[in-house]
């Protein structure tokens, strides 16, 4: 029988853990583990440090620190093999260990997710290939939640849009292929955007390669009966959304504190130091990074393992206060319950529940403090200024009116990332800045933040995040179906889509929102609207004033093709036909029709937590309206405007070499 699609996240987690532990077991005896920095965090998603210990891991080092010692004969490297520079580092460290160690080391290298030709070559050139035992750990997607899989790659955004590196696409294809190999082909692949198209092509190609592969025996080229479709969204069809400040609780934590691999590092002055007994579940459930000096930060786990957080994460931040209040009151009354306990039995019941109460209590304390701290930010003058500008731009007022505010923010030394987000947002929504304005802002930024930001600005331009508008709106995509094919548009036309897909919802019920727009307090993310074009046609029709060419049985992009022409990049639908039609029909008939089907939504280039909240919201709405569909969110990584800017902004200044 086909494996259960709902348990995919669990399966991936188990498989990754088993494979890693199996590899570690294969290296006999005690060993030191050297992990690449980009893997340390992700590892915590499927394995606990204590388990590594059980499998003979003595000390853990970070590759980038280069401080691996010779305290164990066995040394195991666990490193991403796709980046030649990392491979180079590994090669050099191995050489060093061999040269100056008094011990003769047994060295194993585990390449994640695969052993590459380039890594072979680099190790060979370094003269160490013959001395090391090479293994591979094929992990691609890591589950962040049961409905969310991520490649957890930090650099994807820059790889895709700055360096045009095909790496993330290839890995995404591999990851999706693993799902197809287990559950059958995606019966339909829908997509929007250039990279989405490339990814779909890679998937088709991978299927062909697999057909030719003598080793792939389990694989059958049958469409899955439990998966409905795959929807691929290229981030660059909608750059505006991540540039806006997310206003869900989780989104805001990510914007202001930063969440990585389901964990946030919060100043312990805000949430208090980690209590002792929680150490198991909290801070040390992951391999502690070798440098333990950061005594002022405390790691907190932010995922559905904390039921309180699960309630809060997707809510608009404005409602967090009341929410927390309600929970506090309920907890209190639960505690009070002990006074009403009659007889031993009820008392025992109460005592049994105590640990849960305590846990909830602790979590409540953390989130109250954290929310309090966030409110300090959201009440600040600059934050509100920023938000106002964002919402005005998103709502389509002439951005020129916002320029004065932005200039003032520059003069007031607001963080550069804030300024750049606003300018990039304007560029995205309006199809670029007027050249004169752009030049002026460039100059102001260089003056205010230093000339080294020439590099920052150039990078943004390469990424098409911050651009001059060439002439009026020639670069914008044509409006709806009217545009002939010859008109070449290369940018998403927000002005048109704002109406066509009702991106702005001015009034909504805060307590019980009807529309995804609540995640940005009134702006419905375009990326999500595009997904709704497939999944919630009737709902979008109800927002749209004039009737769309829709029937109740429309599938795919039907009804929205014209509107989507105003979004950058190709819109496509591919049906994956079985090699054996008859067998597939029989299989489909056997599977029956009553079961719910899963829709995979893949965000290439990253997804924001606000968008995640919106997709989950859609999922709930669909269930409420009786649609038997589930959404599984896939992405290359979680991003936010903050992380995008962090990745682009030049860190060293012109005097870095002198002061260093």
């Amino acid at each position: 029988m086909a494996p259960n699609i709902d348990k995919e996240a669990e399966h991936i987690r188990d498989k990754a853990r088993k494979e890693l532990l199996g590899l570690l077991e294969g290296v006999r005896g005690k060993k030191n583990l050297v992990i690449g920095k980009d893997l340390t965090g992700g590892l915590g998603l499927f394995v606990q440090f204590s388990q590594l210990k059980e499998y003979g891991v003595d000390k853990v080092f970070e590759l980038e620190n280069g401080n691996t010692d010779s305290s164990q004969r066995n040394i195991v490297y666990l490193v991403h093999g796709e980046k030649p520079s990392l491979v180079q580092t590994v090669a050099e460290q191995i050489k060093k260990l061999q040269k100056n160690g008094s011990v003769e080391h047994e060295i194993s290298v585990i390449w994640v997710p695969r052993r590459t030709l380039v890594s072979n070559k680099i190790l060979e050139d370094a003269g160490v290939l013959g001395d090391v035992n090479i293994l591979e750990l094929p992990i691609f997607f890591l589950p962040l939640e049961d409905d969310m899989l991520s490649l957890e790659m930090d650099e994807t955004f820059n790889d895709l849009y700055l360096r045009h590196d095909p790496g993330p696409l290839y890995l995404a294809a591999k990851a999706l292929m693993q799902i197809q190999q287990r559950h059958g082909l995606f019966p339909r692949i829908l997509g929007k955007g250039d990279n989405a198209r490339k990814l779909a092509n890679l998937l088709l190609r991978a299927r062909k390669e697999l057909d030719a592969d003598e080793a792939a025996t389990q694989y059958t080229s049958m469409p899955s009966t439990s998966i409905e479709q795959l929807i691929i969204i290229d981030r660059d069809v909608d750059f505006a959304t991540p540039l806006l400040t997310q206003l869900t609780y989780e989104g805001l934590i990510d914007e202001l504190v930063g969440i990585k691999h389901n964990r946030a590092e919060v100043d312990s002055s805000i949430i208090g130091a980690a209590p002792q007994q929680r150490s198991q579940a909290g801070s040390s459930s992951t391999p502690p990074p070798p440098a333990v000096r950061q005594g002022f930060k405390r790691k907190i786990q932010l995922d559905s393992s904390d039921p309180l957080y699960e309630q809060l994460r997707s809510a608009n931040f404005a409602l967090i206060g009341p929410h927390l209040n309600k929970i506090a009151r309920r907890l209190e009354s639960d505690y009070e319950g002990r006074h009403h306990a009659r007889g031993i039995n009820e008392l025992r019941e109460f005592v049994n529940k105590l640990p849960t109460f305590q846990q909830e209590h602790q979590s409540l304390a953390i989130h109250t403090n954290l929310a309090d701290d966030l409110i300090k930010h959201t009440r600040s003058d600059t934050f509100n200024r920023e938000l106002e500008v964002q919402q005005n731009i998103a709502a389509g007022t002439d951005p020129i009116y916002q320029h004065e505010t932005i200039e003032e923010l520059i003069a007031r030394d607001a963080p550069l990332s804030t300024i750049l987000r606003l300018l990039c947002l304007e560029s995205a929504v309006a199809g670029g800045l007027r050249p004169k304005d752009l030049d002026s802002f460039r100059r102001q930024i260089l003056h205010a933040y230093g000339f080294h930001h020439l590099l920052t600005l150039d990078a943004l331009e390469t990424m098409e995040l911050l651009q001059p508008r060439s002439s009026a709106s020639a670069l914008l995509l044509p409006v709806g179906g009217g545009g002939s094919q010859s008109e070449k548009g290369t940018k998403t036309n927000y002005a048109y889509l704002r109406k066509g897909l009702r991106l702005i919802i001015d009034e909504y019920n805060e307590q019980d929102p009807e529309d995804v727009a609540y995640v940005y307090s009134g702006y419905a993310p375009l990326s999500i609207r595009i997904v709704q074009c497939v999944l919630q046609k009737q709902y979008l029709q109800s927002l749209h004033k004039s009737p769309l060419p829709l029937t109740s049985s429309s599938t795919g992009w039907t009804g929205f093709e014209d509107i989507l022409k105003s979004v950058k990049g190709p819109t496509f639908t591919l049906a994956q036909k079985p090699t054996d039609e008859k067998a597939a029909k029989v299989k489909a008939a056997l599977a029956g029709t009553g079961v719910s089907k899963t829709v995979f939504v893949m965000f290439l280039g990253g997804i924001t937590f606000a968008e995640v909240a919106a997709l989950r919201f859609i999922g709930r709405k669909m269930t409420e309206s009786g649609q038997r569909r589930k959404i599984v969110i896939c992405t290359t990584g979680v991003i936010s405007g903050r992380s995008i800017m962090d990745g682009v902004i030049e860190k060293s200044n012109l005097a870095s070499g002198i002061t260093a």
Partner: protein
Amino acid sequence: MTNHNPRAGWEKIGDQFYQKIQLYESIFDPDLELENYLVAGAPYGGALALWRDPAKIARYRTGQSAKPTIDIYSSSGKLISNINWEKGPIKGLGWSDDEKLLVVTEDGTVHCYFGLHGDFQPFSLGHGAEEFGVKSCRFWSHGLVALLSNNALIAVSSFDEPRPRLLAQPPDGEVHSWSLIPPAYTLSRSVEVLLAIDKTIFVVDATEAEDRGLSDGPFKHVSVSPNGRFAALFTEDGKVWVVGSDFQNKYSEYDSKAKTTPTQTHWCGNDSVLLAWEDEIHMVGPNGAAVKYYYDDQVHVVPDIDGVRLITNEACEFLHKVPDPLEDVFKLGSSSAASVLLDSIELLEKKSPKADENIQRIKPNLPEAVETCIQAAGYEFNQSLQKQLLRAASFGKSVLDLYSSDEFVDMCEDLRVLNAVRDYRIGLYISYEQYLRLTPERLIARLVDRREYLLAIKLSEFLHLPLNKIYVHWASQKVKASSADDDSIRDIVVERLRGKPGISFETIARAAYNEGRSHLATSLLNHEPRAGKQVPLLLNMEEDEIALDKAIESGDPDLIFFVLLELKKKLPLAAFLRTISSKPVAAALVESSARIEDRELLKDLYYQDDRPVQGSNLLVEEAMQQPQVQAVIDKLKLAVRLLTDTKDPTAVLHGRALTEATQLLKMQEAFDKDITDSSGSYLGLGINETMFRLIKSGYSKRAAKVQSEFKVPEKTWWWVRLRALTAGRLWGEVEEIGKNKKSPIGWEPFYNEVLGAGNTRLASSFIAKCGGLQPAERIEMWVKCGMVVKAGEEALRAKDTNALESLRDKANGQQLVEIERMLSHLRPKR
């Protein structure tokens, strides 16, 4: 019916039966002097490798090629191939489980022959093998250990990726004999070697050489049982000891009474030991019971997992313990249910009613009897006996009400396969036990290696195994052997393999390429959908551009990068850059990797592509790493020079900014010299920050100079001043500025910033200057400064009774009186 005696060749040793059966007869040319040959046989009844020992004198025969060869035969004596061997004396000749022939020379080179037809891959043992010379070798299913003349031991545990490892150094002294325990059977899961040195045995693994403290040596032979649990030791005085391989227990002893040491000692299965002299064999069973066999000629012993093959010129025999089911059925006087079942078949054929009587008698044990008959059929070599046993089983199960026939069906299928490959024309005489361990897949692989394609395909279809590898092997042979022209071969191959799943055209193309038929290889490769397979071969074939295109098509960054590395090594720089310039993906990869590793290449790339801005950015990055101001400035100047020739607006903008940057750096350097307060260096700060710091430290004039030098806009200038002065708490200067009539940023920022810094008095002085505010806002502003009365006045002016009343709550003492007064002012009018 046959008269074949099922007990032919049975011998009882102790309480166990052993059987020696002849598999094939007249296998070798009688002229072949087997005694002069080194013979090694592959496990699981596999091929035999014969190599003429040059140390022995050979009779000269005309017509025989003088070239030394290693000859590979099947068990039935069918010559499979000759491998030319001109690489000197052989110190080790052995086979792996997958029929790779390993030939080890004295200098430590291992030739690993795969596929039985002379294709090989050499590798070197290293670790001083060349210097000291290899003395001998021992093999196990997928590895080998070599003993050097200095007693060093080198182990190789995989032939796919051979990685020779030095084991712990054993002590010096003559090694009388040695053997190994395969890794699968040791506690440490790595190979252990037993060395007979002096009077004892040393056990050597990767970390230590441990003396087992025996004193009855020297041991002339050491041999380990197939399951690794026992060792047989042959002492100088002609005795055989069987001990546990951990040397804790001694199980049996046998005195051969022989004056000469046997040539070989092997295990036959796991419970008996075979001593072989040239023409005599002693088989020692448990408890020291033995049986002797005599031959006319030299006999070679080839051990296997469940018995041994005995090879002479005349025959190939198999000697093994009679498997339990066979013994159960056929033992003389056996009264087991299975035996009765077999008897009843004969009775049935005679239409005797006793048949049914028998069946009824054994009915309670009938299921076991059926099973035993099925098993026995599997172990039986004689086909008519197999049939009879199966017939008995069939009869038995027909009497049973509920019986799953799966086992019966499977056995019938297995036997068909076994009998097919045991045919002398194929010569794979494999026992049922061996077949189970070898697996059908690997048996098929052996057939393919013997180029028995038709049989391989028929059997695969019969067993529902994939056919692709057979086709690929066939096609590769076709490509190698055929003399037809390229296109017609390709057409034949493609035609035959069309629509078949899992066909690796890469393997076929590689075969073609190795034959020197590159054109054919290229055209075959076009049928290979897997880029990962295409690309490396294309690179080998020097089809670089195609390789790069295919790699890009695949979207696999590793492949693309791999090709690029190769190309970069091969091509001159200009040509390399030209190649990638038309391929954006490749160019992007080169660019991002060169950014880390090879900046000079990047400069060339930008120069060639005429991208001055990028070129200048590189220099800016370098500038940021320079340790001295002058060096930074020099780099920036270089960058500016790159930009001067173009009229591209971006370049112009960059040029201007960089010129400004140098100017700023020079000024900052001067500030650093003049100002030595604790605020740190000015170098690298932005203009706004520079002005801010200057003002805050009290150097407003210098700040003003910076402002005019860089034409900082008034608004910015005012904001910076305001922030810096409040940050430095230079209230005097703030007041001074407050005397201005107008401010380009309005006066509210002054109020806010000063208030934020806690100076309510000064903050309040700006309230009056803020125009365009609602009274309510002003009231709020006054209140924030703690000036309730002023706020009251504002409210009075606006005639706002409500505001006044709310102010009353905040007021105290004198303020309260004032507010009351104002309230009363408003009241009468009402």
